[in-house]
């Protein structure tokens, strides 16, 4: 048998220090440190071009690193990628399915690729198709399936070998809310079963709900690290009042917020925002001055993300 990977309970599933990657004269990843603990769901967030996908490809040995040290399931991917990949499942950013093949045939083909014995392939594939509610479309060609179904097929492919490390690279991009909820449920169940999960996403609510810890990357570097709650507490705690984008309103909001130290204001494409320590104080503060916001909401991970990576479009966005 292939045996188990060399990690024991409590150890890191991914341990990376000073990871760098240079393409030509572009430094895509510059000295990244993080670790993913066993049984954890870890989020790797960042704007487009931040270096997330490169980090992921380095982790499973599809891209060589330029510098730094990296252990995945106890192995160095530059040397033992095959050993790592025997315990790995990846929901790739591109579906990369064979569009002319029938769904079930396509999965049987991947079952062979990941090395499931011939007699076990059909059973495993059918089990997964069933659990992801795809069994009724087993004979349909991939191109006949909806986007949400194709994404679920990619989940099936990633789960064929009961991975100990599951990498989800933007798993729910472009999916409707029902499919997203369904997939989140799956991810939680996998985590409960003991899989460690590395997730990248542009949906901050997704990261907030699924991840135990996250790092926010920008231009190849890690800018922040912690649990979603801790990051919100550290970077922008409190309640946010949202006003429509109106120059007169903007002047008044700025005037009152600048005069009070515990209140801050900022502007984005959606409008003018005032942030204060909690719901009650924000309400009091604004209503006393006759300012009625469109809505009041608790600050969230998206506020942290924009605070850290900036509200302007980067070069690679």
């Amino acid at each position: 048998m292939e045996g188990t990977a060399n990690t024991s309970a409590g150890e890191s599933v991914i341990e990376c220090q000073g990871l760098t990657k240079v393409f030509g004269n572009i430094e895509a990843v510059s000295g990244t440190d993080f670790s993913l603990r066993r049984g954890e769901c870890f989020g790797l967030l960042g704007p487009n071009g931040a270096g997330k996908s490169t980090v992921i490809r380095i982790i499973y040995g599809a891209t060589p690193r330029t510098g730094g040290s990296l252990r995945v399931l106890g192995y160095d991917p530059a040397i033992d990628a095959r050993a790592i990949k025997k315990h790995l499942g990846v929901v790739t950013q591109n579906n990369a399915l064979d569009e002319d093949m029938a769904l079930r045939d396509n999965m049987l083909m991947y079952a062979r690729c990941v090395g499931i014995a011939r007699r076990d392939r059909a059973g495993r594939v059918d089990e997964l198709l069933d659990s992801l509610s795809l069994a009724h479309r087993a004979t349909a060609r991939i191109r006949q399936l909806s986007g949400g179904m194709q994404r679920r097929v990619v989940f099936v492919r990633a789960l064929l070998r009961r991975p100990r490390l599951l990498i989800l690279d933007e798993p729910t991009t472009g999916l409707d809310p029902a499919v997203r909820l369904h997939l989140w449920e799956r991810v939680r169940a996998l985590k409960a079963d003991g899989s460690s999960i590395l997730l990248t996403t542009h949906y901050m609510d997704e990261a907030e709900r699924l991840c135990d810890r996250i790092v926010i990357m920008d231009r190849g570097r890690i800018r922040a690290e912690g649990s979603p709650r801790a990051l919100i507490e550290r970077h922008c705690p409190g309640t946010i009042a949202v006003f429509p984008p109106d120059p007169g309103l903007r002047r008044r909001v700025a005037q009152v917020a600048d005069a009070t130290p515990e209140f801050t204001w900022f502007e984005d494409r959606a409008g003018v925002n005032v942030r204060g320590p909690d719901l009650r104080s924000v309400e009091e503060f604004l209503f006393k001055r006759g300012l009625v916001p469109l809505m009041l909401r608790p600050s969230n991970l998206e506020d942290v993300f924009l605070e850290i990576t900036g509200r302007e479009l980067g070069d690679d966005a």
Partner: protein
Amino acid sequence: MLETLQLAWRVTMRHWDVYRQNLIANMSPTISDPVFIILALGIGLGAYVSDMDGRTYLMYLAPGLAISTALWTAFFETSYGFFIRHTYEHVYEAMLTTPIGPHEIILGEFIWVALKGAGMSLVVTLVLLIFQVGAWPLAWVLPFVAAMVAISCGAIGFISSSFVRNINQFQTVYAFLINPLFFFSGIFFPLDQTPIAIRSICYISPLFHGVRIGQAALWNEDLVATLLHHGPLLVGLTAILVPAAWLRIHPKLYR
């Protein structure tokens, strides 16, 4: 090593799985092209060409075209085929998440190309034999030669894949490399009468050596002498082209 072969074989089998989805459509041009060239030129033009070193023009054309299917199929797979799988279909991206690595992908591609080249030339050879073009006893040599030609021409395809910036640029390679290779490899006329410059260039064409061996086999004459002369050259060229292709294409898959 055994595991590497096993993993590479899974890549080959993936291509077969996809290929057989549209088997008839996929095989049609590869089989029909040589067969119709043989018929049109062999029977049509052949009526005006009375003697090709003592045989009919139809007979002259047959082995070269059977071998040339290996060139077309192999070059197509490793140029357009590879480019599409790599850039548009992201097939390798998915494969690299399995225990299959970049070296196994390249090896699997070469095995696929060799088997496909051999299979195609086998079918064309059988068609020829059924119509009594060629001699049976040594015809079994052709698929083996075709496999070798496919590997070397597949290597040329990989090398061009490593240079092109977009898929359209393959047209230039077809026009100025593959076409001359096809027309000047002794398939349509013996090279003995061509200028020495052309003959020398032909010596670095793997297809030319494959065609010569194929002719000796299907005509059932001088096979041993031809093998001793052209065999080492075909193997030697393959031994240069394959590592060159490997070095060029590996960074595309692992960068």
